[in-house]
């Protein structure tokens, strides 16, 4: 939760690589072909790294949740009277009777084919529960993500360009303040004010959930949008600050650059210098953050989903933990971690397309 950009490899690599001038002779023969193969090699390396990480996640996903004390089958039957024979049958059904090693290989094999086991409490395949809740989470986080990224970048850019000014101070002040506010608390306050209604403010928005049900077509879309407003506002409020601060400091770092002086010396207008030269360069480190954020937001909406009764993965996770519904917890954990890994890898893959210095 630190304010620093938690840039993965690529950002630091950008700096390192820039400092090493590439021998001139090499670039001379067919730069295009060279960069293409170099990029492929780079991409393969990154994908390989991601695969290792995914494997590590798979392993942890398995062993971490074997640490949960108690007997999963007894937990699963929720204390209902069950004979030892029946318990054994369940163990067999869920493969819990096998030696740990075999359970593990079995689990890996299945996980790789998308089979994450069957939820104890819902008796449906975990993957079904996830695919059921995923669109909802994606809708919420996706909307919030787009908004807070756009807002954060926009305000961050403005703030940096006019740094030290009143607008900058207000901007960073507000961002820092909202950044320090617990999201669930803000959500609760927002519910009190805008959903329940406080004093003269009418409660215009629903207090929770994703839809009223029974609507179709455009009315349905409108209805969902209506439900979306408050949770999205909450998420945007607590999340945009980080993007703003990172964008701002990246741009500030960039603003001392000599090539900006060159650009101005060429007679470019101030806003052109900013749009064409400063911002695209400054946004490079932000890109990583953006992708990482997307991965994290998906995993981090537990609280907002809980507070706003949003039927998404976060709520599912919390519910699964409190049983605990081992396969579901495990499946969600795998899912969350993979989401972050995939997003990080995407960031790594996109980065060199934006910054020619990396990965070639």
């Amino acid at each position, binding site marked *: 939760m630190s304010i620093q950009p938690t840039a993965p490899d690529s950002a630091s690599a950008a700096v390192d690589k820039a400092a090493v001038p590439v*021998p*001139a*002779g090499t670039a001379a023969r067919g730069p295009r072909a060279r960069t293409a193969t170099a990029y492929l*090699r780079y991409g393969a390396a990154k994908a390989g790294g991601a695969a290792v990480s995914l494997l590590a996640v798979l392993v942890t996903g398995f062993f971490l949740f074997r640490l949960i004390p108690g007997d999963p089958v007894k937990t699963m039957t929720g204390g209902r009277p069950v004979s030892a024979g029946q318990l054994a049958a369940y163990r067999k059904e869920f493969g819990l009777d096998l030696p740990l090693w075999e359970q593990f290989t079995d689990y890996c094999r299945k996980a790789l084919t998308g089979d994450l086991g069957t939820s104890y409490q819902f008796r449906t395949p975990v993957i079904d529960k996830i695919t059921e809740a995923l669109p909802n989470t994606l809708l919420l986080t996706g909307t919030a993500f787009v908004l807070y990224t756009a807002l954060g970048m926009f305000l961050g850019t403005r703030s940096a360009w006019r740094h030290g000014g009143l607008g900058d101070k207000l901007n960073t002040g507000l961002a820092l303040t909202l950044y320090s506010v617990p999201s669930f608390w803000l959500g609760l306050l927002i519910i009190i004010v805008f959903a329940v209604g406080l004093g003269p403010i009418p409660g215009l928005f629903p207090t929770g959930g994703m839809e009223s049900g029974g609507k179709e077509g455009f009315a349905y879309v409108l209805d969902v949008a209506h439900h979306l407003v408050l949770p999205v506002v909450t998420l945007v409020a607590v999340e945009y600050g980080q993007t703003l601060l990172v964008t701002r400091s990246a741009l500030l770092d960039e603003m001392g650059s000599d090539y900006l002086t060159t650009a101005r010396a060429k007679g470019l207008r101030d806003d052109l210098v900013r749009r064409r030269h400063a911002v695209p360069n400054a946004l490079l480190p932000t890109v990583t953050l953006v992708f990482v954020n997307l991965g994290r937001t998906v995993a981090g909406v537990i609280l907002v989903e809980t507070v706003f009764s949003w039927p998404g993965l976060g709520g599912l996770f919390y519910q699964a933990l409190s049983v605990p519904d081992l396969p579901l917890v495990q499946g969600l954990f795998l899912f969350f971690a993979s989401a972050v890994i995939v997003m990080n890898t995407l960031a790594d893959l996109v980065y060199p397309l934006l910054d020619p210095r990396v990965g070639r």
Partner: protein
Amino acid sequence: MTTESPEHHEPTAPLLGAQGLRVTFPGRRGEAAVRAVDGVELDIRAGEIVALVGESGCGKTTLARTLLGLVRPTEGQVRFSGRPLEYTSRALKAYRRRVQLVLQDPSGSLNPRHTVYDAVAEGLRIHGYGGDERTAVASALSLAGLRPAERFFLRYPHELSGGQRQRVVIASALVLEPELIVADEPVASLDASVRGEILALLLRLRTDLGLSALVVTHDLGLAWNIADRVAVMYLGRIVETGDVEQVLTSPRHPYTQALLSVLPEAPGAPLVLTGEPPDPSRIPTGCRFHTRCQILSSGEADTTGVASRCRTEDPEILTASPAPQVACHWARAQVTT
């Protein structure tokens, strides 16, 4: 020929020597290995100042680091006081009491969080100096020209000017009373007006303490200013060596000639070598300089009849002897004819 330096012609045993030194760095990501130092023989005698000159990337720094034991040579050996250098940490530590390093960038060479006192005392602390640390530090500082020393004790590097910083670096090298200093571009980052003072300090140390020095530089003027002997390096190899006066006033190697000719006040038309300095991961066969050699391209080598040797035959490695030598088929042919 000037004879200001009293000691430098006396034949003493070499203090520090490189024998057939080669340093190869493994190439990055499947690229060819970098032969940064590619067969160097070089001796430094007690009380002698040797300048090592050459273009950027020719391996000067790598050679200097290898001499200090910071890099292990791939081949060949470093000899100090007649014995080969050992690479056990104990032996290295003992060696590093006697040979010191001064780097190009005085601001970078000083830890911004250490005071001048700490910086100078660091060596003493590492080597568990038994005597009075304070006195040792103070005398090293005054030797380096920072007087009164106490005034500088509590200063941080950022509170000093560039010249003062370099003096602190030199003081911290002197505090262990070494026999030899390896200075890598000691004044390159200093202002012209300050440069002279630091060079004068190096000269004075030699006269007062009998300190030997290997000065790495790309500035031929600097070599002229302070060195007894100069070694010109090109692509990991020493291509010409000899007394400063001789090498710099009547260079024999085409490369040395070109280097001297592009100096601003040099007489005659500058011989501007074309192209970038070649890459130590792809050293040309034959004479390593032949791809850029103006003698070869102007056809002069042909006239002398060495052109094909230039392209195919690597001139042998120059020996460590102080006598003037040149690694060039053409120059050698000139002498014999």
